[in-house]
């Protein structure tokens, strides 16, 4: 990088630290840090190790500015958030028509782990429920399990700009106790919706859920989608531009488990959550939000994460269908030309 490039990049990171938007996020963090409702997921022991006070908020803009507050370096497992992105990779591997005939895109009011398929087509309801995610995972190409996993990890690296590891204890626990997912896979095999390499596919499914990320990674994932599939910092393409709309629209309708309708109405940002405590939310053409707080509500969504997204949507008018003048102008708050409340 040239001398000027380094100055610009350092100046940009310092401007982000000093910007009114980060000050706003700091206040949000402070506002919800004391919110101790909900519970840490404990269906496997490794998840129960998460500290309830962990709380990170990160926003990455389409221009690649990064605003972060709190525990943005703390790693946790991505869990269901991976489903949206693996769906994108399956689309790249096979095209829309083929993927659509294996998995529907219809929201379901049922829980994420329900054993339920569309009765006429035998397809799982959508790629965000476990059955649908296993079916899309089945579609990931590669000559063996190792190569398929490598392709998934490389895809996440294109989105986040850094290499990711698998949390092996989480993977082993999920694999050892995943009877329900195994049963669902055989049911789908019975209907010819997945291939016979069930053990390999389930391993890949459990592995992709056990990928370690932090709040900044989640913001990069959604900022990349917001930026048409190109990582706004590294400028690398992570997803074919034709399939950005597929991934983002399914996030909007199905991303928040069986609270997706309420979320679309109240927050109006396509988003995906995971029981590790993460939420990644897309504001198309503007920014990506990543939040991390392991305290979950009954539906499996991070309580503080929901609050943060709700406040951001309301204060900056980020709801997809918002037509009213927002309380704060986002661009002014990013650039620092807006009023900051010293």
């Amino acid at each position, binding site marked *: 990088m040239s001398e000027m490039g380094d100055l610009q990049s*350092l100046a940009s990171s*310092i401007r982000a630290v000093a910007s009114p938007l980060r000050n706003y996020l700091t206040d949000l963090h402070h506002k919800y840090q004391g919110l101790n409702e909900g519970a840490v997921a404990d269906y496997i022991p490794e998840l129960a190790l998460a500290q309830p006070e962990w709380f990170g908020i990160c926003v990455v803009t389409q221009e690649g500015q990064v605003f972060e507050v709190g525990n943005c370096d703390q790693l946790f497992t991505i869990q269901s958030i991976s489903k949206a992105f693996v769906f994108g990779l399956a689309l790249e591997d096979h095209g829309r028509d083929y993927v659509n005939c294996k998995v529907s895109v219809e929201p379901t009011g049922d829980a994420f782990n329900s054993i339920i398929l569309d009765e006429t087509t035998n397809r799982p309801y959508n790629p965000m429920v476990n059955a649908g995610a296993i079916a899309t995972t089945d579609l990931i190409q590669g000559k063996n399990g190792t190569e398929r996993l490598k392709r998934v990890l490389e895809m996440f690296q294109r989105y986040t700009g850094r290499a990711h590891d698998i949390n092996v204890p989480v993977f082993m626990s999920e694999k050892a106790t995943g009877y329900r997912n195994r049963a669902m896979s055989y049911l789908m095999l019975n209907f010819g919706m997945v291939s016979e390499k069930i053990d390999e596919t389930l391993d890949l499914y459990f592995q992709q859920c056990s990928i370690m990320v932090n709040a900044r990674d989640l913001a990069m994932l959604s900022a990349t989608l917001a930026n048409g599939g190109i990582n706004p910092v590294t400028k690398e393409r992570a997803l074919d531009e034709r399939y950005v709309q597929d991934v983002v629209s399914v996030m909007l309708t199905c991303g928040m488990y069986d609270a997706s309708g309420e979320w679309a109405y109240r927050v109006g940002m396509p988003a995906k959550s995971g029981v590790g405590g993460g939420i990644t939310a897309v504001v198309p053409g503007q920014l990506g939000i990543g939040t991390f707080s392991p305290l979950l509500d009954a539906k499996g969504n991070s309580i503080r994460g929901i609050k943060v997204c709700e406040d951001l949507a309301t204060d900056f008018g980020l709801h997809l269908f918002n037509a009213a003048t927002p309380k704060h102008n986002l661009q002014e708050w990013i650039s620092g030309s807006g009023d900051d409340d010293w």
Partner: protein
Amino acid sequence: MPKVIAIHSYRGGTGKSNFTANLATSVALQGHRVGVVDTDLPSPGIHILFGLEPEQTRQTLNHYLWGETPIEETIHDVSAQVGVEGAGKLLLVPSSVKADDIARILKHGYDVKLMNDGFRALVKAHQLDYLFIDTHPGLSKETFLSIAISHILILILRPDKQDYQGTAVTIDVARQLNVRKMLLAINKVYSSLNLEALKQKVEETYSETVAGVFPLAEEVVQLASEGVFCAKYPDHEVSQKFCNLAQQLIEG
């Protein structure tokens, strides 16, 4: 609205801490609540001017940056030392002068975000009207931050070729950081020089305003940091100049 004023110079020895102490005192003497933060963590010194002895310092900026204490508790009220009374207040956040503490900061660094959050918390908690940031000379992450968050940046230079070049670099950086307002102050000027001509020349060179030209006064040197000059000699020409600059900040 509270104002944050960063005082910086590219090179050391420009009289930055003395300048900050005098300017902050002048503003506080006019009845304002003023905070001064010594962010010169590698070589702190401004506490000396306010008569704060190491044994009197409790918590410092270092302790805040290590997460050991809220920033509000690092405040030392030095109003009485400089004769600030009534509504005015002069509150100092010192840096630690213990060699171990300095080494710890140099070795492990700190999160520059904390500095920003601390400044804001401080202004809120103590309802400050003005926050002065005394910086470490040269360019570093923390000086970048101080420049980026300040409402007014005051760059101090001496009439010296090394200072001239370094100031040009600093001005480039400040513009890159979208600094809101920048003022230059020329310090330690020999009385034989034509002050007005010097001011004009510097303004032409950098296309920035020179807010004050401060002569090298023997009395300032004699005081040798045993106090804040303008509190001890309020009628001196130099003190008057600080008064004028304080007035510019308050009105500007």
